[in-house]
């Protein structure tokens, strides 16, 4: 089933978006108890980039992943540190909330991060969750509150964010199959999805032949890669989303975020839900109104977008 949600505070107003997202996602916990993911946008750093990556999986009870020797994890991290150094990326700040997930701030010689990203992911089980100037992508097993507490997200100050509560259907319960997905290798672009894509494997083969990498077998990952491919060809976000309605087959509603925008698209069948609230200061959308109501205790006017509808809001 899965639940998706997004919020954007207009005029780039910085608020506690971590708490907003946590409340919204906890409100639709029943749609997906397996994992929760956040893609949130803080105040862009002036110099360099923020990197979120993982080098192993959460081995909680519901996961099929096996626990690894801590020394192996240390070795993987060392390899990544060396690769970054060799590529001229200078790490200025680093932190971690778990033995397998890390947050780095680093400076780099170029705005093109593809080569560096590919080198980092050449390390066994290393996966970049996000790179950007404001984007921070965090995902792990458990509900919204569990993940928020684990990564200290309830004090995250920012402008906008998207999130996902996952009910695993076509792939395993693990972090790599959890949403959101970063639009590798584009800075600050992330996607969450509710639905099924029926032409996933065909499209995946086409995109793989173009050089794109896939880290999971989750059909939702292709939306992020698809959007990235369109943007690489100079197509703007809204047009790419419109194109996706005809080129991606299946039933789906997805939310995409960039450094200053939030967008949603709903398929031709309108088979997956979405509710939108557009206020003067804030826009919120979610699979169910009950999620939005968690950040608006008073009565609000909401609506469902129609089929094949695309909406993009500027922050």
């Amino acid at each position, binding site marked *: 089933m899965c639940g998706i949600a997004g919020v954007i505070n207009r005029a780039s107003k910085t608020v506690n978006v971590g708490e907003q997202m946590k409340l919204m996602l906890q409100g639709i916990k029943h749609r997906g108890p397996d994992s929760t993911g956040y893609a949130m946008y803080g105040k862009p750093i002036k110099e360099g980039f923020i990197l979120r990556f993982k080098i192993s999986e959460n081995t909680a009870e519901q996961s099929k992943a096996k626990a690894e020797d801590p020394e192996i994890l240390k070795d993987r991290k060392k390899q990544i540190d060396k690769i970054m150094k060799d590529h001229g990326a200078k790490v200025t700040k680093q932190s971690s909330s778990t033995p397998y997930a890390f947050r780095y701030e680093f400076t780099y010689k170029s705005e093109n991060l593809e080569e560096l990203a590919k080198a980092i992911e050449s390390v066994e089980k290393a996966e970049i969750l996000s790179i950007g100037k404001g984007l921070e992508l965090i995902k792990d097993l458990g509900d919204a509150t569990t993940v928020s507490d684990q990564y200290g997200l309830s004090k995250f100050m920012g402008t906008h964010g998207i999130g996902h509560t996952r009910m695993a259907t076509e792939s395993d319960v693990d972090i790599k199959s959890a949403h959101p997905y970063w639009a590798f290798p584009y800075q600050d672009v992330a996607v969450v999805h509710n639905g099924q894509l029926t032409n996933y494997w065909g499209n995946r083969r086409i995109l793989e032949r173009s050089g794109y990498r896939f880290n999971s077998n989750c059909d939702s990952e292709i939306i992020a890669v698809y959007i990235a491919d369109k943007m690489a060809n100079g197509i703007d976000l809204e047009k790419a989303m419109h194109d996706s309605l005809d080129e991606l087959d299946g039933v789906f509603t997805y939310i995409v975020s960039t450094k200053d925008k939030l967008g949603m698209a709903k398929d*031709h*069948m*309108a*088979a997956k*839900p979405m*509710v939108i609230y557009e206020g003067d200061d804030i826009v919120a959308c979610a699979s*169910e*109104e*009950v999620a*939005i*109501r968690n950040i608006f205790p008073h*009565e609000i*006017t*909401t*609506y*469902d977008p*129609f*089929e094949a509808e695309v909406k993009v809001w500027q922050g």
Partner: protein
Amino acid sequence: MAGLEKKKTAFDDENLSGRSQKLFFDITEEENFTYYGNHDVDFNKRIEIDCENLNGNQLNQKIRDAIRNGYGTVAIKNPGAKHALGVGILNKLNLIFEGSLGYFGVGCIDGPTVRINGRVGWSCAENMMSGKVVVENNAGSCFGAALRGGDLIVKGNAGARTGIDMKGGTILIGGNAGAYTGFMMQRGRIIVCGDVSANMGDSMYDGIIFVGGDPKSLGTDCVEGEMNEHEVRWLEQKFKNAEIQPKVPASKFKKYVAGRMLWNYDNLEPAEKKGILG
């Protein structure tokens, strides 16, 4: 109920075939109106219930308790778009929601008059048997799915698959309706004052869809019919009762019905089947 005579309904001239409601529903049969848990209520006796700390089950139980205690008017504060509120009410009742409902609101009801001062999520009034539901704002998808009777009214827009599989009653939409409105409907009437998205009336078996605006496209076996004077008057009365003023007068509404080609689908040659499905 004994002693009541069958009255001619507004649509008695409608040509019905097959196993319709009329063949097995007799209003003089008292047992049709007697249900377990049906109570006499006083509409002047009012109670307010705050839903803020209640879930769907708890609220529905409180509504039933109120009915059992003779309350005829129940107002629900802070429904908070929670799911499955007001479900399974089989009694005459004035039920007022001071806010929005989530999924499956007021489903499987028989008899109450419901006013929702907000929006409703997916599958509002699913399987409603009788009564009246008025939604002041917008409605999500599958509005009035499998509706069997009563009046279901939304002042704003309704989502995709409105009236899917409906078997009776009337759905009135003040604004626009989404794709596949009237999908597989078998009886009853849908009135859309605005436009309708693609594939309207797809695979409809019977029933009527009245549209004030334009349908984007018609689904399989949905065809335009001819409005008669009788139906115009009926539409005008429905608009008056619902306090809805469509942009075009009732006489300008278009009528869509089943082409009934699917009725004999199994008897057709493959080439004919292909022709129907387009």
